[in-house]
């Protein structure tokens, strides 16, 4: 028994392949979940934003579903969809969807009506107003929603280990079952945090590049 240190660099080096495979699974699952959620949430938000009752109802339902714990959601989905990647992905999409929907709607509704009036005065049709005025104005809110959803999704993926697919969570759980081997758990945890911060930074940079006007007005 080589002892049980809290962290061991040599474990990371010896198991770099395994770590990379799990991190890659983790990353793919996260990106896939957030991308699917965004592909649903953004058009949905644009569709309902002018129907206030419907938008309020959607946000209300989203808040209720968001209350359901991840483990419970996976436990409900897994017996129905089978064990493995699918129930985890679906659960993650649901959570990300709720965050994105709320943020996007907030961004779209916060727009100054005078701006919309001005755009109409320029002869923009409804579709053009949406594409060229509403969506760009909501972009900062969308980006912050994407960052929030991505970071939470990275943490949530680990719970997926319960239904058989957890990316880095698998390493955490293996380390636990394998005589509580701490180095494996903490290496996986650090990898998870690094992944979250890297994705967050990338989204922040992308958001900054996409909204040059926000910087100009701040300066």
């Amino acid at each position, binding site marked *: 028994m080589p002892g049980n240190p809290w962290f061991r660099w040599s474990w990371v080096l010896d198991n770099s392949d395994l770590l990379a495979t799990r991190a890659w699974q983790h990353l793919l699952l996260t990106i896939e979940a957030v991308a699917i959620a965004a592909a649903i949430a953004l058009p949905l938000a644009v569709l309902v934003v002018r129907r206030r009752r419907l938008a309020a109802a959607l946000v209300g339902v989203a808040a209720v579903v968001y209350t*359901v*714990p991840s483990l419970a959601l996976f436990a409900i989905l897994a017996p129905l969809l089978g064990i493995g990647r699918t129930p985890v992905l679906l659960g993650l999409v649901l959570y990300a969807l709720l965050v994105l929907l709320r943020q996007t709607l907030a961004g779209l509704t916060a727009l100054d009506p005078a701006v919309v009036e001005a755009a109409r005065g320029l002869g923009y049709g409804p579709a053009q107003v949406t594409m060229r005025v509403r969506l760009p104005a909501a972009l900062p809110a969308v980006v912050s929603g994407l960052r929030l959803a991505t970071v939470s999704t990275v943490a949530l993926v680990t719970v997926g280990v*319960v239904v058989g697919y957890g990316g880095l969570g698998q390493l955490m759980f293996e380390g636990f079952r394998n005589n509580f081997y701490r180095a494996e758990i*903490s290496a996986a945890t650090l990898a998870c945090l690094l992944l979250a911060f890297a994705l967050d930074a990338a989204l922040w940079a992308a958001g900054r590049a996409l909204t040059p006007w926000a910087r100009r007005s701040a300066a």
Partner: protein
Amino acid sequence: MSDVLAQALRYLNDPLVWTRDGGLLDLTREHLLMTLAAVGAAAALALPLGAWLGHRDGPGGRGSGIVVALSNTSRALPTLAIILLLATAGLFGDTATILAAGVFAAPVLLAGAYDGVRGADPAARDAARGLGLSPARVLWQVEAPLAAPLVAAGVRTAVVQVVATIPLAALAGGGGLGQVIAFGMGTQRYGQVLAGGVLVAGLCLLIDAVLAVAQRLATPRPLRARATRR
């Protein structure tokens, strides 16, 4: 699939499953007690600290980066990892879970108290100072009531998060309703997994609804329109 559904219904319909020692009723009670301990411990630390930081920074002042950084980092930290690491340190079961859940809840409570006190109407604060109130009384008699809606919202979010987190403990030998799910997965009784999932989800929704009412009651009447969920 309908098989699993039937199994789940049969499981939930068995009175013995509920009432025996260590049955669902016992597990629910344990779940709630663990929640209380975790949120209580976190609140005892985070609420005064958040209120003090908010009082110190004041409105318009430069915000404490700590609060923002804490609440952001806590989102990225996988709770499962904390529970497992605590377990490898010899802290098993309920104690480890309460600690991990408390760590999870503290930033939410801190942010609620901080934002609430910091965002208290500056005019009310100045008026209280003008009346000659000491800083401690300004905080307690003016800022704290004005902060009540945000503090209550923070407490509600924290409680629901903790109720939702405690099931993870079952993976490391902890108690609470998560045991139903963990046992079901271990023995491949997916009906039981489904039943456990529905029970935990139901408990969370129920507690959220109860706390929504409490949050409303905790909000001074003139502030009710402004009270929002975080």
